[in-house]
């Protein structure tokens, strides 16, 4: 079933996106592989947080630089993602460890009953790794949307100042908010459904649900990713406004960058 769905997806991506569609599909697979390697390394006992941060950077590189090329847009997007990731690593570490959401809840007993819980690995770190992985998927989309839109704004109005650029970055960000929150919300509701049906079936009360480990694991992750999605907007807008206005003195640098970008742009439009 996976294979058939994968084939359908590949065919559709090529039909709609041409070479870039094929590239997108390959990037998706590359991401799955990076994720598997990350998880495998954590399971081997390498420090989970460090591995995840490195893994997330590799994923960022795959999504941004490989699909969209190396240029001021993708580099700035990468820098903003790294900043938000580090900031939220601290927030999520605090939330994750003080709310005791690591590991498995009583509701998961059937799933894990075959395994020994004495794994010699701190599950709090694994939880953090999980939360950060969810976050990176959510913020990459927004970061690149803002930096590339701001780049276009600057192209059309080269005299804009840094604060003006920042403000138009925020305006662009505001347009994305509604759709991003919905994408995330529905993706999570889709996963949440069995759990909610379970709660209803076994007649959990509201206070039981809101304090249960199994609910908080999902809920804290979803909502903190949502907050991350909002935080990336001003960060990306600020970084992009800064790098666009502070690139100006090096005129030649900017030009080579544009020319190196030129072929890829025509490339994609020719397909």
């Amino acid at each position: 079933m996976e294979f058939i769905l994968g084939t359908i997806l590949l065919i559709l991506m090529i039909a709609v996106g041409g070479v870039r569609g094929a590239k997108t599909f390959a990037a998706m697979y590359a991401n799955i592989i990076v994720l598997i390697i990350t998880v495998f390394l954590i399971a081997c006992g390498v420090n989970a947080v460090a591995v995840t941060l490195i893994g997330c950077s590799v994923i960022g590189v795959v999504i941004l630089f490989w699909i969209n090329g190396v240029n001021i847009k993708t580099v700035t997007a990468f820098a903003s993602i790294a900043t938000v990731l580090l900031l939220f690593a601290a927030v999520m570490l605090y939330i994750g460890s003080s709310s005791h959401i690591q590991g498995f809840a009583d509701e998961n007993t059937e799933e894990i009953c075959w395994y020994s819980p004495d794994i010699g690995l701190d599950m709090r770190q694994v939880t953090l790794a999980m939360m950060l992985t969810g976050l990176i998927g959510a913020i990459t989309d927004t970061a690149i949307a803002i930096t590339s839109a701001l780049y276009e704004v600057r192209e059309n109005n080269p005299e804009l100042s840094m604060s003006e650029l920042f403000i138009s970055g925020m305006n662009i960000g505001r347009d994305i908010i509604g759709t991003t929150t919905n994408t995330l919300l529905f993706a999570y509701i889709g996963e949440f459904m069995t759990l909610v049906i379970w709660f209803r079936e076994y007649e959990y009360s509201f206070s039981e649900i809101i304090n249960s480990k199994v609910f908080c694991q999902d809920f804290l992750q979803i909502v903190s990713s949502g907050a991350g999605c909002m935080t990336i907007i001003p960060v990306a807008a600020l970084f992009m406004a800064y790098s666009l206005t502070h690139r100006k003195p090096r005129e030649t640098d900017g030009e080579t960058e544009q020319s190196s970008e030129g072929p890829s742009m025509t490339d994609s439009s020719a397909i």
Partner: protein
Amino acid sequence: MIDMNLKDLLKKVGRKKAVTIFILFLICIGGVIFTENDYFLYDRTIAEVVSASEELTRSSPALINSKEYQYTQRLTVEIKNGVHKGKFATVTNKYSSSLVTDEKYSKGDKLFVDVNGSGDTLKATCTGVKRDVYAVGVTMLFALTIVIVGGKKGALSLLSVTLNTLIFAAAIEFYHRGLDLFGLCLAAAFLFTAASLTIVSGVNKKTAAAVISALCGTAVTIAIAYTVLKLTKGRGVRFDQMQYLIKPYEEIFISELLVGGLGAIMDISITMSSSMSELIDRDSSITFSALRHSGREIGKDIMGTMTNVLLFTYVCGCIPLIILALRNNVTLTDVLNNYLDLEIVRAFVGGIGIVLTIPIAIFISTHMLKGTKKISPQPKEGDA
């Protein structure tokens, strides 16, 4: 330099908005402080850990050249509600260093306890952690960031999220009362789409085009997913691995696919229809083929990041289980086959939805938006 810009910004943000945000901030802090002290709302006894001491009771070789340490904690807790309010009790808690199924408590943690015995030296057993303050706190953090960053639009998105959650809760309630889950999800999908797109972009032709494209995109995607599921009889997908083992798996899974892809499909539809209408507004004489071409370019730009958003959202949830299995010497292939397949299927179906909706949205919005634009100057052509 940056300070100057910040002052500039503050001026532009305006006093009114600053005051609104400040009030909101106070409400959030108030909310967190309230849930921190909401002991009276609970029937169950709650206690706060005031001191904790622990000793290493045993260390044993764990799986894969590492050690597992077992600890026993002695906690002194202060009871916060119920008949024993204000008294202290002792709780014993055992945990092992991996914390897979157990928990390590420290000073300040709030626990649900069962008190046994009476007199001065109360004993209690812990039955769970009070996590409501974290749920509320994180929700407040989200609400605050969305309103600070998004202003009015952010508040509207928050409203849309709340509304969708309510629709979802209602759908589950009806399912529990015996209605068909898939049918309910179809109806909910219609409501979700209409409600969120209208809230985000108002009532106009653009929104109508987006709603229709989102619904068509969802319908085609689900038809494909359903056909593949039936044709392969779900082979290769371990439905029995689905969380919490609720029957019937297939019906629930297909409903999950429907709802899960919907957000991304809506996102694509609104992006496509609003850029199409922008293009038509800029140049009303733009040809169909030029529109289609620009639409495809925009589509190519967004499909990569969107499919990745879904991929990460789905896959990250199964990381703990995969690690537990790997540490238990299950081979990587078995782990991937057993635990990743459901999530990959979800991501693939979502991806199919995203990619399919691009041409559908281009077709529908060019015809709906361009068609009406033509009617006003040249009614005859529009009729034909």
